[in-house]
């Protein structure tokens, strides 16, 4: 399992990373591995506003369709349009080309409440039993 040490994580397996004033968000390598081949990604519109913990989209694989949740509250500034035709980018490069959304956080301090890389790694190990 790959982990981006710069990112923070949710127990629902999304990651969030600062890029300037904005947050980039996607799903973790562990999440894409568990979902297996991703066939469709449903993303919000630019300008949509969500609270922390609210579902902002759906990732659908050959096994299951899963909601994806906002790591922090904020307004969507960009979505990864590449995923419309090539959702497999999420499998191939979950922390890079497979990003899902960028957003302007309403409360930057929410970032500090997310799991850091070590805590997320421990959480996954525990969840896997």
């Amino acid at each position: 399992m790959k982990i981006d040490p710069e990112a923070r994580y949710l127990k629902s397996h999304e990651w969030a990373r600062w890029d300037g004033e904005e947050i980039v968000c996607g799903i973790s390598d562990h999440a894409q591995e568990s979902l297996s081949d991703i066939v469709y990604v449903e993303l919000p519109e630019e300008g949509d506003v969500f609270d922390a913990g609210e579902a902002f989209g759906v990732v659908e694989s050959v096994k299951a369709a899963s909601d994806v949740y906002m790591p922090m509250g904020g307004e969507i500034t960009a979505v990864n349009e590449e995923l419309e035709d090539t959702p497999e980018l999420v499998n191939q490069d979950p922390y890079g080309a497979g990003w899902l959304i960028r957003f302007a956080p309403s409360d930057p301090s929410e970032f500090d409440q997310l799991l850091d890389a070590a805590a997320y790694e421990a959480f996954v190990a525990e969840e896997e039993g």
Partner: protein
Amino acid sequence: MTRPLIFEISRPGRCAVALPDLDVPRSELPEGLVRDDLPLPEVSEADLIRHYTRLSQLNYGVDIGFYPLGSCTMKYNPKINEEMARLPGFVNLHPYQDEETTQGALFLLYHMQEFLKEIGGFAGVSLQPAAGAHGELTGVLMMRAYHLDQGDTQRDVILVPDSAHGTNPASTSMSGMRVVEIPSDDRGNVDLELLRAACEEHSDHLVGMMLTNPNTLGLFDEHIEEIIALVHQHGGLMYGDGANMNALLGIARPGEMGFDVLHYNLHKTFSTPHGGGGPGAGPVGASERLVDFLPSPIVVAEEDENGDEFYYLYEPPKSIGRVKSFYGHFGVIVRAYTYIRMLGAKGLRRVAEHAVLNANYLMSKIKDTYKVPYDRVCMHEFVCEGRFHDAPGVRALDIAKRLIDYGFHPPTNYFPLIVHEALMIEPTETESKETLDRFAEALLAIAEEARTNPDLLHEAPHTAPVRRLDEVRAAKQLILRWERE
């Protein structure tokens, strides 16, 4: 080893049928309505028979072998059901006939309603819904209609456990309501504390809860009475997903547990075919509170002056209306009625006893090798993990595919979502001990192969007409219909 399509073996001028001479005067079709090109396949009778016989040989069904597809109750479908459904008195009926001339069919529908009322402990039953998920939508619409009738127009939340069938949240969304998911606890029950919190948070908006009991882990919820009391206390109604009724027949009645509405899957519990994806049938049973909201028509009986029963169609006073044209899937209902009559009350109870015994027997044979995360006495099915610490590259999918080489249909996999690499196994009551033993031996042999020769699993199936299908392409590039090039 792909077979040519019927269109590809077509040759102009070949024909498999010889039409009889006309016994009525020939009449010409109006000008302009006649087409000169009809691109249907042209094949000889021999080609036709060989084509479809080969296709039937590629199929795998309960008449071929063991089919432990969890949550689907793939029991043997007795052939007497088919004979009864083909009786000329049923086959030649027309749905527009007068009630006076269809008393036999109405008798059967009425008594089927009565049997299902008795089995589920309900005040009324409608046979209309055409499938399980259709029954769910019907039940949810009845729950909403009840609240609207009470003047509770703001209620729009339905609680659904995280172990639920995917159709439960889908039916909720389809009826315009909101889903609130309730996590399971570490024994596989609904987490009571989180349920209590959700009931309190959504109290004013609570339509009710959808619950499968036994749940999709094959476990009877240990707090069923508390759960139902909590939901009722907040003004909600209880929807029962009857997919797992096979565990309860003749032993426990959902209506007595406090469920307000429940769908039965005739194609699971009552031995009608699942063939080709349908048709199924998903009748709904309703408690006293909801009985007036059942979809119409239902069949009622009245005694005439001679003391004979007359059966007629009836619309309940607050009915949500029709959910299906005519009277549901009548042929399916005839099959299920036959099944109930053949077994009788004692026989139905034995179905549940043997279904539960078979599942526990199979679980006990494999659980030292395949981890059962919620390790309790199970009901009619159980869920284990298809992964091994000492064979990290092997997944549930590989095990499922390898089972095909051993001559078995794979179990349900990757469901329920709360178990890693889930394999959901439901043997049903119609399998012998020998079959269960052979299946357990195959699973144990595959676990050994996973350690010693994992590629055997990764490349499985080896013996099927096709190997691994490209599921990604199948999901992304839907080709639903053949087209001439």
